[in-house]
């Protein structure tokens, strides 16, 4: 894709400024301090150069409860929407819970629909994808070339992408879990990379504690973030909580995506984090995909959440 010309200077400048846009609100981050710039429309007009990729999450194929009796249909809508984007994304990242119950037919349906985007897809599993004892169904499909429970890394346009798995070997009373083996792998994976390399980490359960009472966090994420702290630009993309949450901590920006299947309540706003039934006409404003653009020349990493409607 894009060549590696104009490397050193722009890389450094990338660290100085990042621009965020989430459902109409533009956040500018300078020196680690986020400032809201108000409602914007132009953020949609992403420049053609640079790297654009999409995050899709929590498609829960097989879900048919009242919160959305047609989760397959809304996934299809999301994939169709991808086809209408002005700039074709380089690839898709799926942050897990591809299926609802890890059934072969659910994986088949998901594959068939997501393939219509005609894009490479980089997956990480959600806990709903690991329901068969050996986690064979997920791993046979998406685990080729990955380590351990399915973690891996790759590079695109000078950005280093790391897919982590935090939905295995969960302990009673605990949160998401990365485990020692994966953390050691991460430490090695990052070794030797210059601090100016932009990093994108993606995993299913948030790597920051959104709400401990509902298990919305990852037990040993602090160690992962410790390995990442020397990098000037780290973006963490998660799913699991079926709503947009953003947080900036030093050089690390956290973002959780909407589901394409059903919304969940805000932290502590309901007795439990189960599927949230909203009026039919409101559902599609709470489902969607996330568009991420990294542009060298513009020194920005923009994250735009695109609801299915509204």
């Amino acid at each position: 894709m894009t060549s590696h010309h104009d490397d050193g200077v722009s890389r450094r400048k990338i660290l100085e400024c990042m621009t965020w846009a989430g459902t109409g609100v533009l956040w500018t981050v300078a020196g680690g301090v986020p400032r809201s710039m108000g409602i914007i429309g132009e953020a949609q007009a992403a420049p053609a150069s640079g790297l654009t990729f999409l995050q899709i999450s929590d498609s829960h194929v097989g879900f048919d409860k009242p919160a959305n009796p047609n989760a397959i249909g809304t996934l299809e809508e999301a994939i169709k929407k991808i086809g209408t984007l002005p700039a074709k994304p380089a690839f898709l990242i799926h942050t897990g819970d591809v299926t609802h119950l890890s059934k072969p037919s659910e994986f088949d349906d998901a594959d068939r629909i997501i393939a219509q985007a005609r894009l490479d897809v980089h997956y990480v599993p959600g806990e709903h994808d690991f329901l068969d004892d050996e986690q064979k169904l997920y791993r046979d499909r998406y685990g080729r070339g990955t380590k351990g429970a399915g973690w891996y890394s790759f590079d695109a346009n000078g950005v280093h992408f790391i897919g982590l798995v935090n939905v295995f070997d969960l302990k009673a009373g605990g949160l998401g879990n990365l485990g020692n083996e994966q953390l050691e792998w991460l430490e090695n994976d990052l070794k030797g990379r210059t601090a100016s390399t932009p990093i994108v980490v993606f995993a299913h359960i948030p790597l920051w504690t959104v709400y401990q009472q509902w298990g919305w966090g990852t037990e040993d994420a602090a160690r992962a973030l410790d390995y990442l702290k020397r990098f000037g630009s780290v973006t963490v993309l998660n799913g699991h909580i079926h709503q947009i949450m953003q947080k900036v901590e030093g050089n690390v920006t956290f973002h959780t995506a909407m589901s394409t299947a059903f919304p969940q309540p805000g932290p502590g706003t309901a007795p439990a984090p189960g599927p949230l039934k909203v009026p039919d006409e409101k559902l599609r404003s709470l489902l969607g995909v996330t568009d991420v653009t990294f542009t060298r020349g513009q020194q920005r990493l923009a994250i735009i959440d695109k609801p299915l409607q509204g």
Partner: protein
Amino acid sequence: MRIKMTPLTCVAVPFVAGIVVAAAISFPVISAPAAPDSKVEIDNFAFSPARITVKAGTTVAWLNADDTPHRVASSSKLFKSKVLDTDGSFSFTFTTPGMYEYFCSLHPYMTGTVVVEGSTGSSAGQ
């Protein structure tokens, strides 16, 4: 009153939600003892009751009444259900006294305990 049966082992017909079904298949005599002596309902991301105390030899049944799948897993790996979708059930017979912690392997913040007390003598009835 005492019914001749091969106790406990034949009760452990996993994933058969209706005890009636098990009884209908083969030995009608086991229908009475096979009924789960204790039930735990899963609803709103919680086990209810979260702590139960039973006698050794008791079959405990978990029923998922939630609109989210759950999976009952012993912390000591003694037992683990298949994934239970809405209305799915799982039972396990506790033969040895002790304290059995368990959790939902999908939502590990959901935890529960089965306390198994020694049964007095070998009499399962009464």
